[in-house]
């Protein structure tokens, strides 16, 4: 049998090499030690000498890369059999590690009941504890599905989604959906709000300059998505600083007048209506408001708000414009004294200087708690808001 010329290991760490040039042709005689071919390694191109004497019967790899040890040629006596050049062994496809198939269920009810307490201490991850704290859930009542029966975030999240056993569905079409904690909270608070004596004021504002400002601001801040809501929040904040008596919270004993305008943004989150707060809006630039608003709205939708995000609001903006609603009255968000309902901006024909023009008009409706703020004050505030919206430069 002919001898096989294999690609040699020429240096530490060399795993493969590239044959670039053969110095002998098939049929040539080769002496032992004679340079046979050239090889390119990572570091250098060099000649490789033949280990065998004889005739170069066959070149299996003319040019190209091969792993160390692969047969690239055959040397022997003329007429000797040459084994077919072996195919490089296909690498076995890497098998993913077989891990035991533990089904992970989202509802803690189905999970193996491992006691989560040890020595009276509840085993729970820091995240789980925080979520439980924020949602008012007693963590000790939960079962943990984490390692060693640790309560983890999904256990807390699941607890809210499915309290106790799902109610049996009565026969027929009616589905009974148990009230979630959030729904109960909303119901409770808004019932209280409905009992407050309120009045409502409406204005329409020409959005021409406001729209230009938002467009320009977007150009200047390409990384931030600035919206009309941001502009309105900013404008309201400035207005609140000029009408400090509107920037109040109502309580039985006293009106709490806040030094900063902490604007709540009403968000329709999957779990229900929630109003996270952007603090100190009067101090923020429009871009900063947009960043803060984007952050809390995002977190509201992901259900990752903290208790702090919901506290200390002094005023709320509720925008249903994106649903095409032209005008609506928002329910007060106690203990805040006022809430602004924002509709859609509609191109409307208006009379101006004796001619008819099409202008983008926005309807703003302010709901005010009469216990805290009187009609004239409320009207004055709303007029300021309209003035600022129509000419934002005046707010500076």
């Amino acid at each position, binding site marked *: 049998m002919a001898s096989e010329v294999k690609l040699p290991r020429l240096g*530490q*760490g060399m795993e493969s090499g590239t044959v670039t040039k053969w110095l002998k042709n098939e049929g040539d005689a080769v002496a032992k030690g004679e340079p046979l071919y050239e090889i390119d390694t*990572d*570091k*250098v191109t060099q000649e490789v000498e033949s280990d065998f004497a004889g005739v170069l019967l066959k070149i299996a790899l003319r040019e190209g890369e091969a792993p160390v040890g692969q047969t690239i040629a055959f040397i022997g006596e003329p007429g000797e059999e040459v084994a077919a050049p072996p195919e490089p062994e296909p690498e076995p496809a890497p098998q*993913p*590690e077989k*891990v035991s198939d*533990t089904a*992970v269920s989202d509802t803690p009810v189905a999970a193996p009941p491992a006691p989560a307490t040890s020595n009276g201490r509840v085993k729970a*991850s*820091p*995240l*789980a*504890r*925080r979520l439980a704290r924020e949602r008012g859930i007693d963590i000790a009542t939960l079962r943990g*599905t*984490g*390692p060693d029966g640790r309560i*983890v*975030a999904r256990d807390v999240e699941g607890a809210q989604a499915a309290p106790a056993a799902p109610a049996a569905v009565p026969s027929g079409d009616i589905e009974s959906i148990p009230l979630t904690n959030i729904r109960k909270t909303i119901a409770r608070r808004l019932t209280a709000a409905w009992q407050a004596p309120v009045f409502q004021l409406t204005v329409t504002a020409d959005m021409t300059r406001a729209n230009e400002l938002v467009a320009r601001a977007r150009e200047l801040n390409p990384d931030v998505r600035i919206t009309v809501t941001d502009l309105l929040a900013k404008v309201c904040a400035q207005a609140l600083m000029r009408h400090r008596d509107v920037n109040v919270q109502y309580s039985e004993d006293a009106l709490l007048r806040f030094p900063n305008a902490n604007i709540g943004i009403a968000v329709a989150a999957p779990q229900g209506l929630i109003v996270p707060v952007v603090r100190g809006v009067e101090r923020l630039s429009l871009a900063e408001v947009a960043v803060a608003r984007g952050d809390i709205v995002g977190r509201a939708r992901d259900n990752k708000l903290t208790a702090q995000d919901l506290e200390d609001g002094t005023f709320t903006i509720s925008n249903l414009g994106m649903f095409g609603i032209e005008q609506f009255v928002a329910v007060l968000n106690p203990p805040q004294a006022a809430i602004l309902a924002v509709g859609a901006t509609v191109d409307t024909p208006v009379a101006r200087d004796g001619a008819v023009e099409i202008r983008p008009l926005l309807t703003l409706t302010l709901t005010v708690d009469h216990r805290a703020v009187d009609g004239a004050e409320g009207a004055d505030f709303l007029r300021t808001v309209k003035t600022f919206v129509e000419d934002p430069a005046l707010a500076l």
Partner: protein
Amino acid sequence: MPEVTYREAVRDGIAQAMRADDRVFIMGEDIAEMGGSMGVTQGLLDEFGPDRVRNTPISEMAIVGAGIGAAMAGMRPIVEIMYEDFLTLSLEQIVNQAAKHRYMSGGQLTVPLTIRTQGGAGWSPGAQHAQQLEAWLVHVPGLKVAYPSTPEDVRGLLWTAIHDDNPVVLFEHRLLYPVKGEVPEQLEPIPFGRARVVREGTDVTVIAIGPLVHRTLEAAKQAEEDGISVEIVDPRTLQPLDEEMLVASVKKTNRAVVAHEAVTRMGFGAEVTAVLQHQAFDYLDAPIERVGAKFTPLPFAPVMEQYVVPHAEDVLAAIRRTVGK
């Protein structure tokens, strides 16, 4: 974009820096005609000549120390320490001198020195030619430390290191030298203290350096098949460290794994873990896992070496532990 090997990227970074500024020169053992024990400096002698590409005797103290002196006297030297293990021989100069001249002089001096070295396991180098010692260097105030994992990163960070007025230790890894990667046509300097998101994910963040970045990518692919979405962040520089990005990522995913080839115990990963637990405590849904080498010198026999060094499977196992799957 052109594709080059990590080795070529280092060479290119050095060459471009030397072309642009006469003050840059390189010295080290066997870097001239031989082109360096890892072939990194090949061709540089031909282009720049022996005055700027200097073979040194085997004297790590003097190599680094002369670099310090030349740097203090206005040059921008690059010093190559052949094996990371030999850094130990020059530690007095790095730690007592280079790191402290600026401070002890009350701000009068700068030491714009770059120390390049390579280390790590692979090909049975034995215990004295395989160490990963970044944890020692990040512990010294006054030093900056980088550990790039890709051709683009090593070229960009090397440029920044050379032009930084502080002493910088830049770690390369021998298994990374042949790794190919895309680099921008024009060299883009990469600032220190800026981590890179290698892969986006939502279930767990793996913070990895050096060769573990690549092993983690493998592990992440496997994890994906099991429905685990892995985010990989490469800090790229260990000092300064982009704590902000690391913490933001963990706050997003709620789980973390820190992976390096160096010995796990008391390693760089321990510091990252401390930072994460401190700044993202309420966001952690699982204990932070660490992946690294076992607590032994590196053994010679290949089966033992493989056992000690961390692989993709180890990262995958750590990922699984965090998600409880």
